[in-house]
């Protein structure tokens, strides 16, 4: 087993499984976020926040998610370093070979950009809700007013709110690009691909990337400009 995990394909398998796990997380997260669009009193969203904050299954999943991220990032770093070592001399003329996408050659850069955003995002939300407990409170229930926390960020900080909006939209796009390559690539790595499925997986990945990019961008835009 140990030499399986240190083999190139074994490491790739870990990348793909952790990546797909993160994709599932993104979907859950996105569907909860979208509730903001459907109730401008914030009640619906806060109920979901309360559910996520108290549900035992979610409590268990939280550290699993953190581990998922760490594994994904650690293996991404190992693979990227090994790949650079495997190509000690670069070509003089920049490569003109067509690849499937720009993203496919820049997954580490995209990943790190997403990671940088994630740090900001965690400071802005997770820390306030779970660690310092400085998030606003809903009077009636005593629970956290996640809705106010989110909407305030995008409406109550003047020009800075526009900057936050731009940063969140950019992060949505970068995530979309990461997934445009990552989604089909994960299936290729697992071995679930062939002549027929290749174009299908490309199409699926493209649709999926748009859903993620638009889904995650639409919320900050809505809050900044329509609330």
């Amino acid at each position: 087993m140990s030499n399986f995990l240190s083999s190139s394909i074994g490491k790739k398998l870990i990348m793909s499984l952790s990546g797909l796990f993160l994709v599932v997380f993104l979907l859950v997260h996105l569907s909860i976020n979208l509730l903001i669009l459907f109730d401008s009193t914030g009640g619906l969203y806060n109920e979901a926040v309360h559910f996520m904050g108290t549900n035992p299954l979610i409590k268990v999943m939280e550290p699993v998610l953190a581990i998922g991220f760490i594994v994904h990032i650690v293996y991404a770093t190992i693979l990227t370093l090994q790949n650079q070592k495997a190509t000690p001399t670069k070509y003089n003329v920049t490569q003109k070979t067509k690849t499937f996408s720009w993203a496919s050659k820049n997954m580490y850069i995209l990943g790190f950009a997403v990671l940088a955003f994630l740090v900001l995002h965690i400071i802005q939300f997770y820390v306030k809700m779970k660690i310092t407990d400085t998030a606003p409170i809903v009077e009636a229930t005593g629970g956290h007013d996640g809705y106010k926390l989110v909407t305030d960020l995008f409406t109550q900080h003047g020009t800075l709110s526009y900057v936050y909006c731009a940063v969140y939209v950019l992060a949505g796009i970068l995530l979309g690009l990461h997934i445009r390559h990552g989604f089909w690539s994960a299936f290729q790595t697992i071995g679930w691909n062939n002549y027929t499925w290749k174009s299908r997986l490309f199409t699926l990945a493209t649709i999926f990337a748009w859903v993620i990019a638009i889904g995650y961008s639409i919320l900050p835009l809505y809050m900044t400009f329509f609330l």
Partner: protein
Amino acid sequence: MADKILKKLYIKVWRQKNANTKGKFETYEIENISQGSSFLEMMDIMNESLVAKGIEPVAFDHDCREGICGMCSLYINGRAHGPDTEITTCQLHMRRFEDGETITIEPWRVGAFPVIKDLIVDRRSYDKILHAGGYINVNTLGNLPDANNILIPYEDYEEAMDAAACIGCGACAASCKNSSAMLFVAAKVSHLAKLPQGQVERENRAKAMVAKMDELGFGNCTNTGACEAECPKSISIAHIARLNREFLSAKIKD
């Protein structure tokens, strides 16, 4: 119609005395190259002119000059085997170039293919991967069934033949930003996995070849697709998916 003559070309090539010395680019001017000549003929003409000037000719690999041996490993103007797709360097013609152009020729840049001299790299690491498992054992004692009598489903035959077209040229690793040998290994594993003769060593083959590939310092595949785009035999990355399946299922059975 007579072929156009390229009056002047600037050939910028990598010159390196041997594996232990540092190399550098040199630019040579050559004149009156017919667009009808092949790229390697142009190289020959250039070398003759260098010899006439007392300069050591540029060393480059070539053998069959008809696209089947996989020797002609030149990286031309940023692409393995030059600007055309689905061909080797020896199948490239000068009609793809313009008068007055600078043509940059580099050796494969793959850690596991060190430069031996000028444009020649040591591609034996591909041979080593083959020796690790890219073969079938045959026992020639007794009555062997005639290969033509073993029936194979048409689709299997087609896929095996597509994979078998690999000539081991190294363009896949050379055009990969990770220097990954996956397309080559996939072609060999896929070819034998699809045929009845390849079944006996099937499980061990994927494991042994991947282990050898990793050991020799080829990079990890990140599915960029550069290999498929540059492979002179258009071998599909669908074969890499099969290699992944073969490898993972063999490991799970362990």
